[in-house]
């Protein structure tokens, strides 16, 4: 049963299993284990990014396609919900319409980009997606009448999902709409993750790996590489869009900086690589570590800077304002120390 749920792709390492279970547990009981606005915020972000990163891993790790347009699809999902809520008013219908429309739009757009440019060389494809993504970001900023431009959109979601909806108290934790919202996000993310896990372990997933390894030969034994690539791109795009919709439901705000920026794209890339490319489980670890670092690194550096206040130079470098510096260092070190990602390292034991 469990094996089927995990599609036969068990973590294959004791330490990894323990870590994954810990993360699962922490996320499942986050509101009770770590009360507070900030921690719930962080937990929801981790859930969403796990799915987003996993969907990117499908593309990058399994199919070997480097795309910089993943945030664009993420954004499509988010804007789908935002625009629908904006246009149709607060309501479940708006969420559903926005989500479905976002996912469909992402799939279609992915197919179009794929058909036009998957034939060019991998590295050029990467650059084309980069250019397209930046063009879309500019477009969103230009169509400010619809999208809110740089400033983004605020909108309302059903009352049942907001803090105003109060249900009572359990174990000293207030049960309100926000909590329901969190569990909506959590459940959807868990399901999407398991679906992705199944896809990469299906015969289809195996073909993707073959294409990544040697596209020429895959074609020669009878796989139509272009179709497989396009399907993988569409699938990955629509899952990213779904993650975007969840993000929009959770945040009740969308804007170019939260969903479309190149910085997020790089974050995703880093999460995939830290976690371990082509493992799906890597997404869980990568997203958890990264989002935690992003949220708490500054705080941590603040205390470290205080602790080292007496030393020369050190506190300067540990100044919380320099957290980006350490993020950069993290980028570099992760590739050095985890060339196969954390999952890869745990599995080989080296």
């Amino acid at each position, binding site marked *: 049963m469990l094996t089927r749920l995990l599609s036969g792709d068990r973590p294959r390492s004791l330490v990894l299993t323990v870590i994954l279970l810990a993360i699962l547990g922490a996320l499942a009981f986050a509101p009770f284990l770590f009360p507070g606005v900030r921690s719930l915020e962080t937990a929801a972000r981790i859930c969403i990014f796990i799915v987003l990163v996993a969907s990117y891993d499908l593309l990058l790790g399994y199919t070997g396609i480097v795309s910089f347009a993943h945030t664009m699809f993420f954004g499509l999902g988010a804007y789908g919900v935002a625009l629908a809520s904006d246009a149709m008013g607060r309501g479940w219908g708006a969420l559903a319409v926005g989500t479905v429309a976002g996912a469909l739009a992402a799939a279609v757009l992915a197919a179009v980009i794929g058909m036009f440019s998957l034939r060019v060389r991998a590295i050029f494809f990467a650059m084309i997606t980069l250019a397209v993504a930046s063009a879309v970001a500019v477009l969103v900023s230009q169509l400010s009448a619809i999208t809110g431009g740089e400033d983004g959109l605020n909108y309302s979601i059903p009352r049942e999902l907001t803090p105003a909806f109060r249900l009572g108290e359990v174990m000293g934790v207030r049960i309100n709409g926000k909590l329901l919202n969190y569990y909506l996000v959590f459940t959807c993310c868990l399901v999407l993750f398991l679906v992705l896990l199944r896809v990469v372990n299906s015969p289809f997933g195996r073909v993707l790996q073959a294409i990544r390894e040697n596209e020429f030969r895959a074609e020669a034994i009878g796989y139509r590489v272009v179709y497989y690539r396009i399907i993988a791109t569409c699938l990955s795009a629509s899952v990213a869009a779904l993650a975007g919709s969840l993000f929009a439901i959770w945040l009740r705000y969308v804007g170019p900086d*939260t969903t479309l920026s190149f910085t997020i794209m790089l974050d995703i890339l880093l999460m995939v690589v830290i976690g371990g490319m082509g493992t799906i489980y890597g997404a869980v670890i990568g997203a958890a570590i990264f989002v935690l670092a992003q949220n708490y690194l500054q705080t941590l550096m603040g205390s470290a800077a205080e602790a080292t206040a007496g030393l020369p130079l050190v506190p300067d470098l540990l100044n919380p304002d320099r957290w980006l510096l350490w993020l950069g260092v993290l980028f570099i070190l992760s590739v050095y120390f985890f060339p196969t990602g954390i999952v890869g390292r745990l599995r080989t034991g080296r």
Partner: protein
Amino acid sequence: EIRIAHVYGKTGPFEAYAKQSHDGLMLGLEYATDGSMEIDGEPIVVIEKDTQLKPDLGKALLAEAYGDDDAHIAVGPVSSGVALAMLPVAEEYERLLIVEPAVADSITGENWNRYVFRTGRNSSQDAISNAVALGGEGVTIATLAQDYAFGRDGIAAFREALDGTGASIAHEEYVPTDTTDFTAAAERIFTAMKDIEGEKRLFIIWAGGGNPMSKIQAMDPSRFGIEIATGGNILAALTAYKELPGMEGATYYYYEIPQNPVNDWLVKEHMARFDSPPDFFTAGGMAAGIAVVEAIRKAGGAEDTEALIAAMEGMEFETPKGMMRFRPEDHQALQSMYHFRTEVQEDKDYGVPVLVREIGIDEMDIPVRNQ
């Protein structure tokens, strides 16, 4: 204890502005409490939060400030996008958010809620003051702005305000936000303007780097009798104004312009502590700090948000820019702007904006847009 959260983009591209804003806030609190950092015996605690210029993070941090840290009042942020994301949080927690220095009109416009006040100027104030400064009978104006909401709204407000001054707009040019080569834009403007008689001005609204002024100036617009005009800017950016002596426009702040005790104190203290004059965002931050203290004093404490709102609506307070007043309708602080002319001065390596005339609160008809 009074907890004030400063939620702003400490790191990221606007790091320089953020530092000014924070220094200003602290100076404002200090000034308004006469250095005691206490209001009616209650000590003030300032909690800093870094939005990294990310709206989602800004939102989470503001929620954290209200929810986990129990802050009474929040101040910030630098960027409009972040500010807009933060507005609903204030409503949700029913706590005050004093926006400073984000400028988008919609903060006190369509996205406003009653927990939001703004000490910073809004885009309309900028645009209208410039219209007042530049407009005049028989003047023909072309505009150049970035092609996104900030630029287009600014020009729209400018155009509206120009109505009735006798000036007319002959051409509006919008270019992509990241434009670096202005040759084509300038050629289009020249083409549109060259056959027009009378006084001709090119008004530029530009945010961020990539300064178009000196590039267009280098193409010698005086050939066609066109003068360049633009609003004020932070000190560092005034370097470019040195190439444009005599240029006119309206500015928000320049430390030598306002003549009042608050500004005198600010300039003196800032020189003493940071060895440099205060800038745009220092002044803004200070205004926010003073507003916070005044409001709490007036309401008799920081606990009761409703009392604070009641106290602040219509409240007048002294700032480095002179008296400001929170308009009750949309909580926007009304304030003076300054019509300036650029001069090259011996000891300064930038073009100095010299006051032509103060444009008072009553001279600018800032529309209320939150209905």
